[in-house]
Each structure stands twice: as structure tokens, then as C-alpha cells.
């Protein structure tokens, strides 16, 4: 429809222009003839004729101004007229404005999230030239960190490829205990190569940024740049900042400067408070001394493309250098002895360059699909709001039919009346947009809390920015035009006599209104169905649960190595803490494990398995280290074999893991269901990898990275984790807060300087791991609620209108002996005639959105019969409910009165 209107407008414009052209040509040619008769030659005559009117182009321009002036005058008049007539019907105007405000406000809020998380380019020099370098293939390296990891040495080598890059830097986020003089607090810092700021093109707000010279010999330059926000908020924005001390994991660092205002690192989801050079990584990441090893992948590598270089050309061009580097690397004496297969995969690796104008973020990775789903949902909601306003306009239009007829009779053109309708709806759109934009920050704050909570310190911002405003303006204008199209079309079609003669609405108007309500039903079904799917997903995940006990459980984590403890000290401290917690009167039992659960991360590696034959796992297994009490405390069952005991722990302290307990998924995948007891495993793969760890037990499956994931797992005795910190799981008696206070005291008495990280109930921990799913479910629920309300109002309006128009017919039927029930059925049938095709079209749309939605579902398909059935049932029930009121009115028609009224 938009397209047709557009084409029509273009054709009209072309006609106007060609007519003008012809008209002027006629004039000029006639004048030329005059001059030729006076004896001038053709060229001279032409020159004179043109000079006389001041040039054809000049005249055309002036005529066009006349057209525009007239259009603007009319439009201003239409707007004034629209404003006056809207002010006369405040109830109508408020309903329409509120509908659009709802649609525009929610779309703008979600758009701002999409923009900030997915689209917004970093505030650095020419961000479009930034690329992320990723290793596609086998790296023969062990990794820690989030995603797209590579080693520090390869980053430094790549930085030398100046024909492709204006520089390549690397960075790793790490959690540290941070202090600028006061208490130690858990914060995030970025460990970076020395050229980080230079390549990004970010300067200093005070002092200087890091330079290559800071990233020299390991441990030689304990310097840091702090973030502008930290400087302002926590250090009072002191000018003499350079030279001050800060402490990272109890190691002193000298502040050399403050990063530029507005620069918050390259990850929108996690904002660092400071940057330190990679050469100081042993201090920033306790226990990590191998930052120069090519066998450690822990950093993201980003580069700035050289002038005139494209991503594709750089990727191809890097090929030969990269292959040579792989060859050379493999010839090194310290290259790990791996299987021929792994060597082949290593040599077949490729570098892939991805656009990184937005930097690198795990938050983006987590939210990219949910956000597009939500954007689609708000688009549907906005469409629905437009239809609602269209319906309202049509309803008002049939009430104003005589007014329109009169204006037509007085010589107003149809186009003029149609434009009047558009002026109405544009005004409504503008008002709705204003209101929606005003409400957007509130919605946005809620969204950030809902979607990115627990992600301490994001760069997300709930204020109205230029881009949100731009979106809101575009959405308002589009909504204004879309909701005015149907009424404008309807007003243009009515004849003068018809409009003046008929008293009720015309059949055409009713048909259009039905079509609109049918469309509303379709869009509503889409939103209700998605809400049902997301609710079911959340329910499935909650029902499935993490596979361990959550009620009456409290958890916290300590990282003594970040508090300056050595591995040996940590080991002893962990034992004392465990003992203290066990002795606390609130404790029933306590288990400790190494890598935190349900955070998305894990300790993982491919494994070698030795049974009667020797083989390797086809994918990474998830690994962890636990105390013997971990199992009973967590309610994780030992289904075969035995638990760890004191002797296992004692041996693990000296020799590492000698025994392991695997889960049922492992038995199913690698043992074909046979008992694994007595089989041996080894961490890593390769021909000379020893499989010496004996499987002594089998445990029930439980969630590690997240509730969705089901994976093969093995756990080792706690002391086998090399003296790192750990997560406590405590089964407590009594109320949560009191128990948590008691536990805090117990830990404080032994290690007052150690922060208790992620200190919360296990129920809360499980809840947090489902943040995205919960947010999707609750947002979809509110969208579908709003959608139902909007479309039921529409349906009710049309049915009331239809009943009023058919009073006479119903009266006649009643007079002829029809029962009241049949009058009700007459109306209900009418309602069903909108609900059923609407639901069918909605189902088709749900099917079409299946691919988009599938990625965020769990345990339910996009066309799940139960969920869709429930959605259709709800829609039908609510629809018939809304139609029931007019239907009752129909059944109450008094035949005599209805006939007399005509």
C-alpha cells in the first residue's frame, strides 16, 4: 500500500514536470517565430526568446516553488485543522496517542539496547578499520578466558606485518583485587600489549597512556593507566595523578596517566578500571608466568587495517606469513609431541579477520540473538499499535462521514481529504513518539537491569542519545503514515451522495475495519505464541534444574592468590577456611570445588581414555576438582564406585590427580554404558599422553557451564587443582541472611582482607544463570499482554459498530421468531470470522520467525503444538470474550423499537 502510494506520487510528479516542460517549450518556440519574422536568424531568435523569460530553468524553478508553497500551506492548514479536531475528541486522541506511545517507547528502548550492545562503534580513531584476528583451527595451546583467544607472541609477530596493519594489539580481561589506597575490591582490569592505546588512537586525559616501552622485560615496569570514570569517581579527579600508587592483587603499581574521557575499553559488557602491560601479567593474573609462551592462548588480538587495505585482502595476504610461522613453530624443540592428526590440523589452521568496529564482547555474544528476537517482537507490537490507531480512525471516520461528505460537496478534492487524514495520524504519531521517547529511559533502565545485571560495570547507558532520538523520530513518522494509510484510502473512496445519504457507515468501511482487526489478531497471536514458547523454555530449564540441591544452600568464592598468597599458602588457607565454615553453628555441611559453576566458563580439555583399548575423546570434556563432602552437600549421587577419601586428597597434594570420578554422560558416550571403574584417563591428547588417572566412581549428571548444557565431565580431588582458590557450597540451617552473616564472620576471622566473591544463595545463583531466559520470558509476556489489550479494544469496537448497524436486521429476525441465542451466534460468528483467519496468518508468521527464535529456545520447538495451542486458545477465548458484550447487546434488541428507529 505504501509502495503504491509512493509510486502514485512519483507518477504524478513526473506528469507535472513534463507538462511544465511542454508548456514552456511552446512559449519559447512561438516567441522564436515572432523574432524570426522580425528578421533575426534562428540562433539569435532563440537567444532573445530565452533571455526574455530569464531562462527556462529559472522559470521552472520558480514554478516548482509555487507548487511547494502551496503544498506547505495546505499541509500547515491540515495540521491546524487536525489539531483542532483531535482536541475536540480527547478520549479518542488519548487512546490513539497512548497506543503509539506504547509501541514507539518499547521499540525505541529495545533499539537502544541493540544499538549499544550490537551496533555502536568504539569511541576510538576510525573504528571501522579495526578487525578481530581469530585462529580457525587447532592451536595446540591451552586456553583460559572468554572467546577468540590467541597467544601473546603471535600478536607481537603480527604487529610487524605493516603492509597489512597499522598495528596489531592484544588484550585480556581479568578479575583482580584492586585498591587505590582504601580497601581491596574485586574489579576488572585489561592486560594489554604496549601498543594498545596507540593502535586504538586513544589519548590521555591526564598524564600519559601506556607505550611500547612499558611492555618490555617481564615484571620490569609495574605501571598502570586508570579509567577516566575511576579517576573521577574514586580518586577525586586529582590533577597530580601521575606517580600515585595503586595495588593490584596486593602488588604495587604506579599510575602513569588517565585514559581519555568516554573510553571504556573494547568490551561494552565489561568496563576495566585500569590497564596494565602484558609484561606485568604475572602480577595481574596470579600464578600465570607463561605469557611469552606460544602455547598459552588467553588474549583477543585486534588490528587496525593499513590504509587502502581491505579485510579480505589482508586475510589472504597474511596466509604465507602465517604458514611459515606455523612451520617454524612446529620445528621448535619445545613444540608439544602431538598425534599426526593434530599436527595436520595445526598446519591447516587459518587466520580469519572479522570486523571489530564494536570491539570484542562476551555480553554481545550472549545477547545478540535475544536482542534481535526482542527487536522483532517490538516491531510487531508497533505494527499492532499502528493498526489499532487505524481502526480508531476508521471508527471516528464513520462517525464523521457526513462532515467528510459535506467537505467533498463543497469542492474539496479526495486527495485533499486523504491528506487531512494523514495529517491527523502524523500528529498522533508525533505525540505518541514524544510520549514514548520520554518513557524510553525508564524502560531502558529496566532492560539493562534485566538483561545485563550481574555484569558489573557495563558501558550501557539509559539516557536518551542522538541515535535513540533518531530512531524514535523515524518510528513516529513511519507509525503516523502507516496508521493513516487505511483511513486516508477509505476517505478517498466514498462518493459525495453516498456519504451524505447513508446514515450508518458504509459497507466498505466495515470491511476495512474487519481486515484491520484480522491483522491485529495475527500480530497478537505472534506475540502471545512467542511468549508461550519463552515461558515454556524457562519452565523446562527450571524443571530440569542444575542437577544439584539449591534449597537452603549458600555459596561464595575466595581467590587467595589475588590476595598475595602463594600456592602453598593458599592450600593451607583453603583448609583452614573449610574447617572454620564447617564449625560454624549455621553449617550443616560444606563442599568446595575449584572452578565456579553456572557462570558460562569451565576448565576443559580433550582427554585420552585407556580401557581395553586406547582412544581420545572427540570433544572437550569439562573438568573440575572437588572435596569429598561436595557430593553429599550438593545432593549429587555416587551411582557406582566410591567417593574420594582422605588418602586421595593426600596423594593429590604431591602428585596431582591420580583418581577421578566421571559422570553418567561420560559413561554413556565413551563407555557404551559399561562400567568405567578401573579404566584410566589422562588430560590432553597425543601419542605420548599418559592415561594414568584411575576412574573410581560415577556421579549423577549436573550442570557446569549452564543449565542448558549437558556435557561429559570428570572431577579430581580438590588438592589436585594446584593451589588455586575455590568456591564454597554450604548447606545451612535457618534463614538465609542470618546464615550468611554467620559465614561472613567465620571467614573474616581467618582472612579479613579477602573479599568473599559472588556471595549469595544457590537459588539466586541458579536464577542468575537464567537471566537471559527470564528476561525474554517476562518481556515477551508484557508485550503479549499489551498486544492482547490493543487488539481486543479493536475487536470490541468493530463488533459494537457491526451490532449497531445490524440492529434493524436483528430486529426483523427477532420479530420473525428468532431466538436470542441466534442473535448472539450471529455476532460471535462475525467475531470468529476475524479471529480464525487472523490466527491462521499469525501461525504462518510464527513459522516464519522460527529460525530466529529457535536459537533462544530450550526443550521446545518453534512450532510446539502445546504452546501454540495454548496461544490460540487464549486468543480465541479473549476475542470471544470481547465480542460477548456487543453480542449480549444484540440479544437484547427489542424488535419493535429497532424497526421504529429506522
Amino acid at each position, binding site marked *: 500500500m505504501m509502495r503504491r502510494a509512493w509510486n502514485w506520487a512519483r507518477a504524478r510528479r513526473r506528469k507535472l514536470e513534463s507538462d511544465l516542460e511542454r508548456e514552456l517549450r511552446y*512559449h519559447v518556440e512561438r516567441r522564436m517565430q515572432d523574432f524570426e519574422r522580425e528578421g533575426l536568424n534562428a540562433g539569435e531568435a532563440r537567444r532573445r526568446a530565452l533571455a526574455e523569460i*530569464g531562462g527556462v530553468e529559472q522559470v521552472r524553478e*520558480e514554478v516548482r516553488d509555487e507548487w511547494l508553497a*502551496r503544498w506547505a500551506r495546505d499541509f500547515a492548514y491540515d495540521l491546524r485543522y487536525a489539531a483542532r479536531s483531535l482536541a475536540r475528541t480527547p478520549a479518542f486522541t488519548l487512546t490513539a496517542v497512548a497506543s503509539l506511545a506504547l509501541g514507539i517507547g518499547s521499540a525505541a528502548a529495545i533499539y537502544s539496547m541493540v544499538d549499544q550492545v550490537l551496533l555502536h562503534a568504539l569511541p576510538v580513531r576510525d573504528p571501522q578499520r579495526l578487525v578481530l584476528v581469530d585462529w580457525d583451527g587447532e592451536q595446540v595451546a591451552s586456553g583460559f578466558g572468554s572467546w577468540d583467544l590467541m597467544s601473546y607472541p603471535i600478536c607481537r609477530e603480527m604487529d610487524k606485518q605493516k603492509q597489512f596493519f597499522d598495528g596489531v594489539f592484544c588484550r585480556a580481561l581479568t578479575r583482580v583485587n584492586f585498591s587505590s589506597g582504601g580497601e581491596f575490591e574485586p574489579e576488572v582490569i585489561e592486560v594489554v600489549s604496549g601498543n594498545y592505546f596507540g593502535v586504538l588512537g586513544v589519548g590521555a586525559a591526564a598524564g600519559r597512556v601506556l607505550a611500547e616501552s612499558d611492555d618490555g622485560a617481564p615484571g620490569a615496569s609495574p605501571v598502570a593507566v586508570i579509567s577516566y570514570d575511576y579517576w573521577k569517581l574514586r580518586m577525586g579527579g586529582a590533577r597530580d595523578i601521575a606517580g600515585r600508587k595503586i595495588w593490584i592483587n596486593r602488588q604495587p603499581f604506579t599510575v602513569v596517566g588517565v585514559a581519555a574521557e568516554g573510553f571504556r575499553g573494547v568490551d561494552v559488557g565489561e568496563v576495566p578500571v585500569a590497564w596494565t602491560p602484558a609484561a606485568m601479567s604475572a602480577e595481574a593474573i596470579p600464578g600465570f608466568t607463561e605469557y611469552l609462551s606460544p602455547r598459552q592462548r588467553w588474549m583477543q588480538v585486534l588490528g587496525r587495517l593499513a590504509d587502502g587495505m581491505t579485510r579480505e585482502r589482508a586475510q589472504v595476504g597474511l596466509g604465507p606469513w602465517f604458514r611459515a610461522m606455523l612451520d617454524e613453530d612446529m620445528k621448535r624443540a619445545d613444540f608439544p609431541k602431538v598425534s599426526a592428526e593434530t599436527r595436520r590440523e595445526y598446519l591447516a589452521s587459518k587466520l580469519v579477520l572479522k570486523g571489530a568496529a564494536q570491539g570484542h564482547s562476551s555480553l554481545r555474544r550472549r545477547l545478540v540473538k535475544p536482542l534481535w528476537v526482542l527487536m522483532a517482537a517490538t516491531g510487531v507490537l508497533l505494527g499492532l499499535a499502528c493498526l489499532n490507531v487505524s481502526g480508531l480512525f476508521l471508527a471516528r471516520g464513520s462517525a464523521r462521514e457526513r462532515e467528510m461528505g459535506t467537505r467533498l460537496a463543497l469542492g474539496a478534492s479526495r486527495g485533499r481529504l486523504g491528506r487531512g487524514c494523514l495529517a491527523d495520524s502524523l500528529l498522533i504519531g508525533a505525540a505518541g513518539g514524544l510520549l514514548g521517547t520520554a518513557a524510553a529511559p525508564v524502560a531502558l533502565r529496566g532492560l539493562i537491569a534485566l538483561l545485563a545485571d550481574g555484569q558489573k560495570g557495563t558501558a550501557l547507558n539509559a539516557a536518551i542519545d542522538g541515535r535513540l532520538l533518531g530512531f524514535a523520530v523515524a518510528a513516529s513518522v513511519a507509525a503516523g503514515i502507516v496508521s493513516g494509510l487505511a483511513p486516508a484510502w477509505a476517505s478517498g473512496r466514498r462518493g459525495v451522495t453516498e456519504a451524505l445519504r447513508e446514515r450508518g457507515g458504509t459497507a466498505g468501511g466495515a470491511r476495512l475495519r474487519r481486515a484491520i482487526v484480522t491483522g491485529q489478531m495475527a500480530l497478537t497471536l505472534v506475540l502471545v505464541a512467542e511468549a508461550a514458547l519463552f515461558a515454556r523454555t524457562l519452565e523446562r530449564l527450571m524443571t530440569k534444574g542444575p542437577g544439584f540441591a539449591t534449597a537452603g544452600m549458600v555459596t561464595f568464592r575466595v581467590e587467595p592468590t589475588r590476595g598475595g598468597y602463594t600456592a602453598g599458602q593458599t592450600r593451607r588457607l583453603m583448609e583452614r577456611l573449610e574447617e572454620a565454615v564447617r564449625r560454624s553453628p549455621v553449617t550443616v555441611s560444606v563442599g568446595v570445588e575449584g572452578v565456579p559453576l553456572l557462570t558460562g566458563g569451565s576448565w576443559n580439555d580433550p582427554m585420552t581414555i585407556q580401557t581395553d583399548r586406547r582412544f581420545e575423546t572427540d570433544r572437550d570434556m569439562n573438568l573440575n576438582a572437588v572435596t569429598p563432602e561436595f557430593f553429599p552437600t550438593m545432593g549429587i549421587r555416587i551411582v557406582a564406585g566410591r567417593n574420594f577419601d582422605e588418602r586421595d586428597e593426600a596423594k593429590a597434594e604431591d602428585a596431582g590427580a591420580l583418581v577421578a570420578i566421571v559422570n553418567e554422560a561420560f559413561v554413556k558416550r565413551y563407555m557404551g554404558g559399561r562400567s568405567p571403574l578401573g579404566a584410566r584417563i589422562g588430560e590432553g591428547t597425543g601419542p605420548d599422553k599418559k592415561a594414568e588417572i584411575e576412574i573410581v566412581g560415577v556421579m549423577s549428571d549436573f550442570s557446569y557451564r549452564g543449565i542448558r548444557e549437558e556435557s561429559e565431565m570428570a572431577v579430581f580431588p580438590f588438592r589436585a587443582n594446584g593451589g588455586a582458590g575455590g568456591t564454597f557450597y554450604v548447606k545451612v540451617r535457618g534463614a538465609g541472611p542470618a546464615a550468611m552473616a554467620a559465614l561472613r564472620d567465620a571467614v573474616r576471622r581467618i582472612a579479613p582482607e579477602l573479599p568473599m566473591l559472588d556471595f549469595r544463595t544457590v537459588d539466586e545463583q541458579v536464577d542468575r544463570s537464567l537471566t537471559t531466559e527470564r528476561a525474554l520470558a517476562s518481556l515477551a509476556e508484557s508485550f503479549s499482554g499489551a498486544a492482547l489489550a490493543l487488539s481486543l479494544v479493536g475487536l470490541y469496537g468493530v463488533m459494537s459498530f457491526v451490532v449497531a448497524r445490524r440492529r434493524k436486521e436483528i430486529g426483523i429476525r427477532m420479530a420473525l421468531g428468532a431466538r436470542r441465542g441466534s442473535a448472539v451466534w450471529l455476532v460471535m460468528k462475525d467475531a470468529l470470522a476475524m479471529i480464525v483467519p487472523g490466527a491462521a496468518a499469525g501461525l504462518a508468521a510464527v513459522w516464519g520467525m522460527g529460525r530466529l527464535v529457535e536459537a533462544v529456545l530450550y526443550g521446545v520447538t518453534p512450532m510446539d503444538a502445546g504452546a501454540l495451542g495454548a496461544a490460540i486458545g487464549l486468543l480465541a477465548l479473549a476475542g470471544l470474550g470481547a465480542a460477548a458484550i456487543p453480542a449480549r447487546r444484540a440479544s437484547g434488541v427489542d424488535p419493535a423499537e429497532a424497526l421504529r428507529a429506522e
Partner: protein
Amino acid sequence: MKPNSRFPIPQGTLDMFILQIVSLEAAHGYGIAQRLEQISRSVVQVNQGSLYPALHRLEQKGWLKAKWRESETGREAKFYELTAAGKKQLAAEKDSWAKLAGAVRLIFGEGEP
């Protein structure tokens, strides 16, 4: 009279002249230009370039309507004619012009008895 002694046409009067010319018979732009030239007899200076914007303005105001039809040379030309609203407008303008002219004469003392 020398050409440069012609005075430029006062604002708004061009529209009135055009309505007057077209009220006699439907005419195309060139024709109107010729008639303007004849009627004003070099008294007022009409810039031919401003004729067409004026015609379109009057058409948009609904005082003129236009049709394409064959002209005296046999070629198609755009002919303008007065609408009912245009007739009313012309009458109103003539009336107010007469009043203004009377007032001017009065003030300059020419019409005093």
C-alpha cells in the same frame, strides 16, 4: 515613451491582469503574454519570466483551470480559463481596486467637487 520609463508592475497586480485577460476567453501562456503586452502598451513592464509561476499559482489556488488542446497553430498548448472561484476573485479584486483608486484620487484632491 522610452522603454526605461516604463514602471515595474506592482506586486499582486499581475495576478489581476491575468484573471482579467483569461476572463474574456481561454488562453495559453504565450497568448496571455501577447495580450499583456498589447493591453499595457508599454506602460507597465511585465517580466515574461514571472508569468508562468503566476499562472501555476493561480491554478493551484483554484482560480484557473487548465486544459491541453489544439492552438491556432495546430499544436497542443495548455489553455487556461477562469473557474467559478476565479470569477468571484476577479470581481472582488476589481471592486477593491476601484475603491483604492477612488481613495487615491480623493487624497490627491483630483476627485473633489
